[in-house]
Structures are given as structure tokens and as C-alpha cells.
């Protein structure tokens, strides 16, 4: 806030971080929040704990969370990309490639389609996990060749 303001002088209206080429040093009683370019020259926010401990990247270069979209992704510190969505009318053996590209370290599938009476919800299993791709798989199921499958995946 400007020096001539009637109130809140000295407080911040926004914080614009210029890129740092090296991680700032931190003493035992300091932490640091700063901008460093990632390997693709994209600015990212980093946090460095006290005593020069290992910095961690807090942000990811992009995000896509439009309400209602069937495939979305967000992120958390690491950074990890968190993918979520619904594959409608999936087939057994259907390959899925998530974007943006990452290396998947977790994939969970939920079958939202049931068969039989009594109801039996067969598990769908991610197989062939490689890069940001996996295959939707389930046991032979002659009564339902198409399934709606929710996925939740985490990539690094």
C-alpha cells in the first residue's frame, strides 16, 4: 500500500516474485518463499524450510478445473499432479492417456456401473501404468461390455 494511503501503509496488495537463479539461504529461524524457473523455464513458487533444508516446489505450470468437466487436474506441493474424471462407456482394455504428461505413481479406478441381481459391482483395475497412461481392465464380464469408470490419479 502506498505511503500516502490512509490505512494499511506497508501492507501488500500483490506479491510479484522475480525468478531467482539459486535457492535463497535460510537460517535456523527463517523460511523462504521464492520464484525459480523449472526445467522448462516456467516460473514456479518454491518453499525452503529453515536451515537450508531441501526446497519444495509448491506450484505446477498449469491447472484445469472447470466445473463439470469430465477430465480435470489440479496439483499439490511436490509438485504432484492430481487427475480426476469420468470415462464414460469405457471398454475392457481401453487405454487412457492423461494430460498434462507426467509419470503416474498412483491410479485408482471406480466402476460406476453394476450388473446382476443382486447387484455386483465388479472392480476395474488400472494395468499397464506407464508415463501418464494406463489401461482400464476388468475380468470378463459378459453382462456389461461398457462401464462408466471414475479415475483418480497422481503423477509426479
Amino acid at each position: 500500500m502506498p505511503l500516502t494511503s490512509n490505512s494499511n501503509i506497508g501492507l501488500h496488495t500483490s506479491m510479484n516474485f522475480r525468478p531467482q537463479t539459486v535457492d535463497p539461504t535460510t537460517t535456523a529461524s527463517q523460511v523462504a518463499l521464492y520464484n525459480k524457473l523449472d526445467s522448462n523455464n516456467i516460473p514456479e513458487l518454491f518453499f525452503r524450510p529453515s536451515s537450508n533444508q531441501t526446497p519444495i516446489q509448491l506450484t505446477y505450470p498449469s491447472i484445469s478445473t472447470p466445473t463439470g468437466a469430465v477430465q480435470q487436474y489440479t496439483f499439490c506441493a511436490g509438485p504432484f499432479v492430481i487427475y480426476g474424471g469420468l470415462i464414460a462407456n469405457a471398454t475392457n482394455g481401453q487405454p487412457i492417456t492423461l494430460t498434462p504428461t507426467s509419470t503416474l505413481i498412483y491410479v485408482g479406478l471406480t466402476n460406476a456401473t453394476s450388473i446382476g441381481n443382486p447387484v455386483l459391482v465388479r472392480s476395474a483395475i488400472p494395468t499397464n501404468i506407464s508415463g501418464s497412461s494406463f489401461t482400464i481392465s476388468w475380468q470378463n464380464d459378459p453382462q456389461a461390455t461398457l462401464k462408466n469408470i471414475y479415475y483418480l490419479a497422481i503423477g509426479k
Partner: protein
Amino acid sequence: MTFYDTGVPNVKDIFASSQDPFLKNFKAIYDAFAVNHIALDKTNAGNHFNAQMVEFPNDAKFTTNVGEISLFCKNSGSFNNMDQLYLQYQGGNFFPLTTYQIYTLKSVPDRFFTCLPGKVLCYFGIVDINFAQGVQFLTFSLFPKVARSIISLNFIPLGTSTTQFPPLTTITVPEGGIISKINLFPSGGLGSSNPTKLGYIILANI
């Protein structure tokens, strides 16, 4: 707080007679800098104690140049008019980084939620279920009731039985644009007299 006088210095000032306003202006700068920062006359001058952020006007914009990244505080509007922390990428695209402490969770043990960037809420925890005889489905209520769209969900039995299957899930029709309930239908091994615990995780747009 000493207030800064933009009329000082003046080209016609005689230093001997304008020392006082000069000193007052330096004091104003010192005082302003000391807000959120270690003061100019202290060790580590310039470091931040904290970064208090004043709400950025909703219709205002600022520039984040190539190579830069920015944080600011804005009234989030739909979130009960509360201020949240926003992240702005180089080029100007911005989104809410936090949606925290807006809602309260009912005092139900083992049920939690957290927020992810981009107005995403993550519900997770453990819930007890029991499909008693004749019960066709159970209703799982989302707290807080703020979900506008379900991105993904997973319910998985946590019991010791290897014959339990996940329940069938259906999302109820939104009421007032808000999805607050998910119906759980019994599946193999989850029928009557088989109470169990379900672990769950749900991602939702809010």
C-alpha cells in the same frame, strides 16, 4: 505512524528550514517498511516477518511478466464473500490457490476435507455402513454442502472379508446447484448383516 508528505522536498526548500519535514518523511518510509519487514536498522533488514495482503479490487488487474509468478488476495465471491489467496501465472491467468477455512465440518469422526488449487474440494475419510434387511440404498451426505460437480469418487470396503465388493454409487440430482448426497447401493458381500467400513475419497468442484 508518521504520514508521508509528497510535497517534501520542494525545489525551493532551504535545507536548514526543511529538516523537520525531511526527517518526518524518512520516518514515514522507515515506519512503512517496518510493516511486515525487518526494519532498516536491524539485522536481516528487508526480510519479511509475514506478508499481510490487502484485498485486491475485483475489477483491477496487475501484470505478471514472463519469468514472474504472483500471489494476491481477492474476494472469492461465491465462497461466502471471503478473501482467499490467488496465484497468478506469467501472462495473467489466475485462480484461487486456497479455499480454506470457509466451511465447518460436522463433528463426525474420521471424516475430513481439504482444498486443492482451482476450487477443488477433496472429501475423504471412513464411514460405517450397514445395509440392513430391506434397505435398498444408503445415503452418504457430503459435508460441507458446497459441491457443484463431482470430479471423481471412490468407496472401498475396509473390512477383513475378501468377498466384499465396492458399493454401487449414484450421484443425486443437485439441489440449488449443489450436490449434497451420494447414494450407495449394496453390492456383493455388502448386503444385510454385513456392516463394514468404507474408505472414501471424493473430488468435487465447488
